[in-house]
């Protein structure tokens, strides 16, 4: 069988963002793949060194449009650790609430796109219609649908009034019922299972060897979740279930995200229930004393790592961002070998790529 190479080029309906892949196939079987990133590399780590900490919060928010809040939260945690200031508990709870809402909206977005690539246009439309509720909450609270500018060094930029809290509770309730609908589509829709069951299984050794994080690792049975293992403040007082599935194929990766969405919604409720009163922010000096810090948090796609070094001025000396998609991407060529050509969309969508995160 002659070997031909399909270029999944910078522009392809399968990819929302530019990524070029060379997939060599023989007949209908895929042999291997090679990746080329860099189309979205804006040199953010270098740009961050030329701006003050306050300006950096806005720059960091534009690393990735879907998980922008997790990035700013981790960055602010790093700076606050260097400054040694204590963020008021209410601000921590609001940060956790926005993180969980962002996980809901990111997972629902991804579930819709996977359904779109498998041919289920209707599920894509309904999932994204439900996702609008999550965006309504975030817009009602922070004014921004996608990037919310919620964080500032020392706390959060807004407070929750009575009506806003009522609106959040009501919308979260509505979201729970609608996500239930999406869940039973995924669990007992025969065609979706036929397309994803047993496709590109990933073993635990592979996950550990490639240091994969997030839902992809949990779908193969590796039980890591930074919200429980290395929590920042509000998460240690909240109890929630970390879901892992044994078989680790494309269907497990689909189901785990749906289950995590429901778990996040339950977490939103407990956060709203335990939300303390008090101030929302504390004054933070402009100059950060010298020091280094590493902070980690759980983005919708996995572990985000921030390394920050300051030299006493109001500009960072070195900032290193490691986003989860970079870890998951190194597994892609491994996953793509020995699958069916028609399975490429399912595998590619299965990893929930966020190239803007990976390229920085």
């Amino acid at each position, binding site marked *: 069988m002659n070997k*031909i190479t*399909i*270029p999944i080029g910078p522009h*392809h*309906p*399968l990819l929302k963002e530019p990524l070029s892949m060379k997939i060599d196939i023989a007949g*209908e079987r895929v042999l291997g793949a090679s990746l080329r990133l860099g189309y979205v590399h804006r040199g953010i780590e270098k740009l961050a060194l030329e701006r003050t900490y306050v300006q950096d919060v806005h720059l960091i928010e534009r690393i990735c449009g879907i998980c922008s809040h997790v990035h700013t939260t981790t960055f602010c945690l790093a700076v606050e650790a260097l400054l040694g200031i204590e963020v008021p508990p209410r601000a921590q709870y609001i940060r956790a609430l926005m993180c969980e809402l962002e996980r809901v909206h990111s997972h629902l977005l991804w579930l819709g796109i996977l*359904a*779109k*690539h*498998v*041919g*289920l*246009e*209707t599920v894509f*439309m*309904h999932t994204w*219609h439900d996702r609008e509720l999550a965006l309504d909450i975030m817009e009602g609270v922070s004014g921004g649908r996608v990037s919310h500018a919620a964080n500032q060094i020392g706390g959060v930029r807004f407070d929750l009034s009575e009506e806003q809290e009522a609106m959040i509770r009501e919308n979260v309730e509505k979201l729970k019922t609608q996500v239930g609908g999406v869940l039973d589509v995924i669990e007992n*829709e025969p*065609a*979706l299972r*036929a*397309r994803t069951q047993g496709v590109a299984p990933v073993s635990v050794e592979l996950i550990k060897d490639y240091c994969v994080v997030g839902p992809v690792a949990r779908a193969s049975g590796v039980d890591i979740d930074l919200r429980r293992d290395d929590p920042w403040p509000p998460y240690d007082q909240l109890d929630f279930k970390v879901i892992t599935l044994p078989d680790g194929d494309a269907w497990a990766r689909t189901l785990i995200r749906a289950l995590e969405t429901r778990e996040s919604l339950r977490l939103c409720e407990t956060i709203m229930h335990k939300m303390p009163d008090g101030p929302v922010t504390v004054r933070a000096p402009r100059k950060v004393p010298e020091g280094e810090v590493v902070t980690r948090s759980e983005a919708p796609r996995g572990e985000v790592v921030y390394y920050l070094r300051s030299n006493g001025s109001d500009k960072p000396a070195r900032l290193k961002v490691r986003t989860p998609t970079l870890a998951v991407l190194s597994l892609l060529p491994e996953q793509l070998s020995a699958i*069916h*050509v*028609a*399975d*490429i*969309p399912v595998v590619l969508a299965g990893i929930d790529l966020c190239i803007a995160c990976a390229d920085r």
Partner: protein
Amino acid sequence: MQFIKGLFFLLIFPGLSFQVVCGLAFEWIDRKLLARFQRRVGPPWYQPLADLIKLFSKEDIMPEGAYDLVETLLPLISLSAVLTAGLYIPIAGFTPFSFEGDLIVIQFLMSVPTLAYYLAGIASVGIYSLLGGGRSLLQFFSYEVPLLITISGPAVMAGSWSIAEISRSQLDQGPFIVFQPLGFILAVVGLIGKLKRDPLDIPSASSEVVGGSLTEFTGAKLGFWHLVMNIQAVVGIFLLANLYLGWSNITSPLPAIGIFVLECLAVVVVLSATSAVFARLRIDQLAGIGWKILVPLSLLQLGFVILMGV
């Protein structure tokens, strides 16, 4: 006089303009229904017309290295094939050209666009067109055989190969869908495969092969291809309405037309519903289902019809 009558039949009534109007109406109803299934509003009524005219107004780009004469002729050939197929189908009982065996001719003419689709894939030398063309042939074998077998079911029951005869014989025996419900379902699946519609749109799946064979087509040629797809759908629906839902030629013309329109709308609703609900199968899964499930079922159905008829 005969010539003018023939010209009228050819160009106006069951011929070109009637089928184009039906094709555009079908596309609008289909997209509107699909949108309503997805809680959306859907396009305005004149949308298919606007799409068609816009495509004709676009510039015509040919990828260098492609065989442009072949690429311009293919859509025209398949358009003429589908239009002639539409001539033989009785519309609400009225059929100017009908002869013994026109069911077979229609089946052949309806398969010409699929082969033209494959040749278009080869002619426009892109990687995605090659893939799309190859897949359309792979899919052709898995739905065409069961379709032919199930279509011959009503022919056996009516004892004749002319569609007009088949639909007229349903007067005394009652509509064949009552006797052959399984046949109707298999015919719908075959039609979906032939039209490359949603559950079986593997050759033109945008996420795998971008545009299938039509990736390189622009402007007027693409417009013709869309027209071919629509008219092929309309002819297929008329065929199913005549073979299985025979109520339309019971009484005098006026209520017959009303019933015929209702039958066609029913088939369209069935098509749109299946395209909204089902996911796209993999090409090997489709081939597996085609030969392991569809063919035995259609043989079973045919055997049952023959036994019952004798």
